[in-house]
């Protein structure tokens, strides 16, 4: 069966838990998106901007020195970090802004954690001359000041959100409130495979270019499919983009890496799939970090882009069905991995991506014979240099 179903459910997860004010626009978006999915002109336009503007296809790079360091793993890096703006987020924002244009919306809003989605949205908005407002938790504004500057340079207005934990979830709350207020002329570009139906499926489709390319590239070089896919999971867009095109390749094992923050036992983490329970947040049913009363808990990760107490519903489904496995990496392990990849390959990964890299050492110990793995190198680390300097 094709998932999600008509109501936007992946098994028990997903749906459309939206305020009435947004129902009409969500129904309209769903209809338009279904049509655009089959519209050759739209797909051609999307592909044009991905290739000519964002720099696709990205390389699938065999990391020779990292592989020999890890011994039993043959590691291929899917270089989303080489894309314009420095992360996979641009795939999705280009797709959504083209949808927004077709729907005649003139004002673009977005939420951002690490600032990568905000930058990618500001970029796409500048490219098409649309007004852009980005909501960002006040704490993240501090952590990721370079990205704030980039967004402003491209003409976006960045609104620091002072409520709650002052991070990604609060930015999303505020963006939703903006959308409820300005729904007539505004398009909300959600940055992850989260939110109300059809966002999780739409973002997945736009990000699937990662996995589709990687699958072809790997087959061409290795004449077979990889044994493993590894990617970090915050909301889960880069991982779903990599995983989804391999869904039916049942021998390809998928591993999503969540942020264990200061440690799973400390309560200061973002390991939604490992430690969360089922609930409804930001429009869909999925796993959440919540307390005994159903209040949303504050997530923690050194990586602002993973610092989210929810996760895309399709990941909850992959976990429940056993299609993917979800593991965790601490802040400390991620920092070490960032240093390792920088030294061994001359590639500085984003703090988020470093979680995926860090898991490779554990995977290398798990495998019985030499195995191949594609890692989604979802973003570059330039944005993290300020924050990381104290660990070097």
């Amino acid at each position, binding site marked *: 069966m094709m998932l999600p179903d008509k*109501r936007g459910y992946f098994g028990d997860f997903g*749906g*459309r*838990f*939206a*305020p*009435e*004010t*947004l*129902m*009409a*626009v969500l*129904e309209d978006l769903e209809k338009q998106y279904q049509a655009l999915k089959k519209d050759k002109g739209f797909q051609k336009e999307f592909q044009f901007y991905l290739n000519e503007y964002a720099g696709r296809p990205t390389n699938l790079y065999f990391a020779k020195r990292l592989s020999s360091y890890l011994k039993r793993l043959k590691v291929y890096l899917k270089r989303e970090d080489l894309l314009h703006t420095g992360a996979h987020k641009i795939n999705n924002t280009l797709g959504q802004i083209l949808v927004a244009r077709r729907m005649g919306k003139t004002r673009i809003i977005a939420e951002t954690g690490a600032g990568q989605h905000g930058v990618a949205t500001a970029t796409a908005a500048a490219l098409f001359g649309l007004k852009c407002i980005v909501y960002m938790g006040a704490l993240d504004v501090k952590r990721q000041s370079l990205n704030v500057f980039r967004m402003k340079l491209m003409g976006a207005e960045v609104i620091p959100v002072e*409520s*709650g934990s002052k991070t990604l*979830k*609060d930015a999303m*709350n505020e963006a*939703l*409130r903006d959308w*409820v*207020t300005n*729904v*007539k002329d505004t398009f909300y570009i959600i940055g992850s495979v989260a939110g109300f139906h059809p966002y999780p499926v739409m973002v997945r489709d736009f990000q699937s270019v990662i996995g589709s390319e990687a699958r072809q590239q790997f087959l061409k070089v290795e004449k077979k499919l990889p044994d493993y896919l590894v990617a970090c999971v915050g909301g889960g867009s880069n991982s779903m983009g990599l995983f989804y095109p391999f869904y039916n390749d049942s021998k390809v094992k998928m591993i999503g890496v969540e942020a264990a923050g200061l440690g799973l036992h400390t309560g200061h983490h973002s390991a939604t799939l490992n430690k969360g*329970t*089922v*609930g*409804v*947040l*930001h*429009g869909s*049913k999925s796993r*959440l970090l*919540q307390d005994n*009363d*159903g*209040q*949303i808990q504050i997530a923690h990760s050194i990586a602002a882009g993973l610092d989210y107490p929810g996760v895309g519903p399709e990941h909850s489904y992959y976990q429940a069905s056993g299609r993917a496995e979800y593991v965790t990496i601490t802040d400390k392990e991620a920092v070490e991995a960032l240093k390792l990849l920088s030294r061994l390959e001359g590639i500085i990964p984003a703090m988020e991506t470093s979680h995926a890299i860090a898991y490779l050492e554990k995977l290398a110990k798990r495998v019985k014979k030499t195995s191949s793995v594609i890692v989604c190198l979802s973003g570059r680390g330039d944005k993290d240099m300020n924050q990381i300097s104290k660990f070097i």
Partner: protein
Amino acid sequence: MNRIEQKFKSLKAKNKKAFIAFVTAGDPGLRKTEEIILALEKAGVDIVEMGIPFSDPMADGPTIQASFLRALQKGVKVQNILDTVKRLRRKTELPIAFMMSYNLIFHYGQEQFIKACRAAGVDGLIVPDLPPEEAVDLRALAKRHDISMIFFVAPTTVEARIKANTKASTGFIYYLSLTGITGTQKAVSSSVVKHIQHIKRFTDKPVCAGFGISTPQQVKEISKAADGVIVGSAIVKVINQNKGNLPAVIKYVSFLVDALR
């Protein structure tokens, strides 16, 4: 017939409109909420909406968000609020609806929650992030236990949804008097009146308007078409500014209620 339905029936017989007051449960403290609700009844309020504090409300503006945060910082739990209603029921038959985010209900367990509402004396549920199509199970449970499920119609709601939502809604229909979040801008009475007249072509159920209503003029104008008027953020603000001081709250609410009579 629960207390909400009875209230509208008796108001209709008297050709009167309902004044619905929203208060955040537990701001400033649940004992105070209890006193405020009893005082509101004396001030002529017909139905009380208790806002159940949630960490991440989607449709609420800064005033109600801040009140939720204050209540949560005091440690208010869903169970404590149900207990408060139970205590109130020894003293009043005022209809009470909970306005809350769906996650709190889902987390409590839908069936357990409906039963707990019934046992405590809650008459209705208003769940802004739960459209009727996601509420199939909850609606069936609520119906079985005679709890009203109040759904919304927004200025952006298309005709097919107006039909579906008014059909699904029990107790009354909540008309959103502005496209936006609670308490941040003023509802424009003339367009609200026009919209409500349109909605009434699809339903015989009471239609009440809320969001952005804070003045006697608005109450008066909107009640020309609506069967009830809901005031939220403005009351929450007065309660907070006066630290729950009853006479100040009553003075403000009476001022609004009088506009309806």
